[in-house]
């Protein structure tokens, strides 16, 4: 919800970003037209349950890419962390939260390992994470002894598949879901209002009041419509709450913290960043640690969704996450991109998969189409840059 909202605000300034939002709307419209089930409560709920782990990976990947790196190991790391959680919970009978902590711990450890090679030793992340992709896949097989483990059941299973509903009763729709969405929209409107007031206080250019209100109303309408559909199905998915919190936290991290600013500085011009006192090693190290952590979160969610751990899990996830970032406006050379962009990019990937599945398009065709969308999105980026100026 936050994602969609912030993208609207971006739309005024950034052609590239608004182009993505328009593309997203067009794609959604197309699938609605082709299949009336697309916007149904059941399918929207499915969308959330099915693709949130890609969005979470895309958040971490966006930061990696803004910093001028890449991470090819996240798919393997999703498998490894899921496997560790499965071994702890299923094989050793530990409670669900021990499994989650173990997975997150492994994610941090792996992130620190890759951060060491990238930041301290200075090996390009492409190589470090290519090595990691092989190593963590191998470790997954070893941890699982080459066999799948299932089922988690219980609370662990609810992480991805559970719902918060019925807390306030329901009359054919879940009141609690609507209340949460309402609070979210109100909070968003309030923060936008404060931001606008702040800008006015500093004599900055702001959009006109009617435009501001129209924009807020539009965002609120879309978000509440989404909430309404969810509430008619099974209520508020737990994983959506996790995702929303992550988007919020990382949007703040990238846009409003010194650390976030330094990530952009390093990706934008490494030399200038260094000469401006940015601790490049420190920042690069924590970029990789953070990616490890988010890959572990995605690993937990994915293993919860499949209710078990498979040696081959997470295959090619890294490519989905990278594609989401580039579709969502990241620059290949680093220094550009937003969390909201990664989310919209990820949603485009998700909606296309889901829509084509509903229509019964074969998987092979789906891959061709997704590949083309990635190519066109980045092609548009390169083209507009070349036209924009010769200095870049």
């Amino acid at each position, binding site marked *: 919800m936050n994602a969609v909202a912030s993208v609207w605000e971006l739309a005024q300034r950034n052609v590239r970003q608004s182009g993505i939002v328009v593309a997203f709307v067009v794609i959604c419209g197309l699938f609605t037209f082709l299949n009336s089930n697309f916007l149904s409560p059941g399918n929207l709920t499915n969308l959330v349950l099915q693709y949130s782990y890609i969005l979470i990976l895309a958040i971490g990947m966006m930061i990696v890419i803004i910093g001028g790196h890449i991470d090819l190991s996240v798919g393997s790391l999703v498998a490894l962390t899921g496997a560790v959680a499965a071994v702890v919970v299923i094989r050793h009978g530990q409670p669900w939260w021990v499994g989650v902590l173990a997975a997150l711990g492994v994610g941090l450890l792996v992130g620190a390992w890759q951060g060491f090679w990238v930041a301290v030793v200075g090996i390009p992340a492409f190589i470090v994470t290519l090595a990691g992709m092989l190593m963590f896949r191998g470790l997954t097989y070893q941890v699982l002894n080459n066999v799948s483990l299932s089922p988690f059941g219980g609370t662990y299973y609810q992480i991805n598949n559970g719902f918060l509903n019925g807390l306030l009763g329901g009359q054919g729709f879940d009141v609690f879901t609507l209340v949460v969405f309402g609070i979210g929209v109100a909070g968003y409107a309030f923060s936008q209002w404060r931001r606008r007031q702040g800008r006015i206080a500093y004599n*900055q250019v702001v959009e006109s009041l009617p435009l501001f209100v129209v924009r807020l109303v539009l965002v609120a309408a879309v978000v509440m419509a989404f909430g309404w559909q969810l509430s008619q199905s099974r209520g508020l998915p737990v994983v959506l709450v996790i995702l929303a919190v992550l988007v919020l936290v990382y949007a703040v991290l990238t846009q409003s913290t010194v650390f976030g600013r330094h990530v*952009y500085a390093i990706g934008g011009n490494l030399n200038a960043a260094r000469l401006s006192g940015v601790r490049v090693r420190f920042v690069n190290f924590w970029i990789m640690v953070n990616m490890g952590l988010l890959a572990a979160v995605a690993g937990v969610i994915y293993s919860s969704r499949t209710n078990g751990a498979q040696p081959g899990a997470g295959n090619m996830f890294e490519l989905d996450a990278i594609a989401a970032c580039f579709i969502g406006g990241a620059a290949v050379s680093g220094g550009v991109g937003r969390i909201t962009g990664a989310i919209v990019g990820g949603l485009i990937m998700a909606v296309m998969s889901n829509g084509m599945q509903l229509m019964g398009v074969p998987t092979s065709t789906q891959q061709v189409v997704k590949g083309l969308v990635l190519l066109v999105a980045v092609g548009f980026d390169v083209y507009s840059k070349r036209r924009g100026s010769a200095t870049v």
Partner: protein
Amino acid sequence: MADTILEMRGITKKFPGVTALEDVNLTVTRGEIHAICGENGAGKSTLMKVLSGVYPHGSFEGEIVYDGSPVAFGSINDSERLGIVIIHQELALIRYLSVSENIFLGNERRDRAGFLDWNRTNHEAAELLAQVGLDENPTTPVGHLGVGKQQLVEIAKALSKNVRLLILDEPTSALNDTDSEHLLDLLRRLRDEGITSIIISHKLNEVASIADRTTIIRDGRTVETIEMDGSPGLQERIIRGMVGRDLETFYPERESTIGEEVFRVEDWTVMHPTQPGRVVVDHATLSVRAGEVVGIAGLMGAGRTELAMSIFGRSYGRHVGGQVYLHGVPVDTSTVADCIRHGIAYVTEDRKGYGLNLIDDIRHNISAAGLSRLSRGGLVDANAEIAVAETFRSDLGIKAPSVLSLVGQLSGGNQQKVVLGKWLYTEPEVLILDEPTRGIDVGAKYEIYGLINRMVAAGKAVVVISSELQELLGTCDRIYTVAFGRVTGEVPTAEATQENLMRLMTLERNVTDETLQPEVVR
């Protein structure tokens, strides 16, 4: 009448907004070594690019007569076909390829089937190496050779193209004395074999020892061509020719009120980051007082920027030695963050490469070095940040629609103001400005000079590094000269002239070994 191999007549080359060459004439006699001298940016390299076809025929005015007939080169290949070969200052060798591969790169020796003929390649390479006096196996990777030997490989490569007119741009700037001597000997030998050379050099001793004639270029025009007949006073004549302009009244007036010493660098020595044993800055010592503008004058490659960047958080070089003092107290400057904390700021000469994040906006660029002032608990106060950016935009006169404009879209002068704003926001006591007016227009230059004056009026210490002597004379209270990594002189501006600065800037080590102390003009 001597036999003329090359005549360039009335060469005018314009770039958008700048006239790099205006009505330049150059006549080179067959079988001579012809030197070209001039300040940085005088147009020497541009002239050579016109000659070698890097700037194709039609992109400049004037005519080139080579070997008695007018020529029109469309590319560097055309000029090479006629035996004109240019060797650039930055050698164009590929480190991982062998000597012979480099020599025949783009000109490969092939057998009848079209495959590479390695025997012939290595055999011919060995012959060429013998010709230039380089005793190395042709299969050695070029990266394993020192710079001096690499230079010889470049010449061997030129010989492989049947060179008749060899152009060398600053061939000895990276060489030590022995290698330089060896190279100059080779040029003399080639001359005796009938190869004409044009050599661009800042080393006037070298020019005096090797050149038959010297052409001086200044501000894109030819000043004169001198017969190097060994008569006394030739070097002084060259220096006069290189700098001879009047100091325009172009610099805003300033009252100097100079206080205590603020900043002092002692015994500063820096080694080259990748070439072991090469000293880039050699026991440099300098100081700046409060309210004083101190200039550093030096030609390209003298070590000015290397000195400044190594002081600023060891951003350049290896084995940096020496000590920095602030108000007489030794301070640690080993990271950029340390320097910023101590109030030292460095405005780089390469604002696009090292100064700015061109794909970000003015606001973020200005706050880049001073984010700690804008943040609490790691969170940046976005509104305060905008306010700061606005302050500097109006204060420095940055012309942009908004502080949210991308820096990459600004003009050079406005970009420079953004970099200055970034460092002024860190509230430095010592401001090191490296080529602060390079590539910006006259109006913006004047504004930046005014800004320097405001800085010193506020009691700060300012160091200005510049290639333009006039600029140093116009803005500084005192000027250090550096040459080949050493501080060769310290001159109060009142007593400085472009001539005596240029003399100190071209002092070579062997001349002054007896007097290692910098010369102080009083």
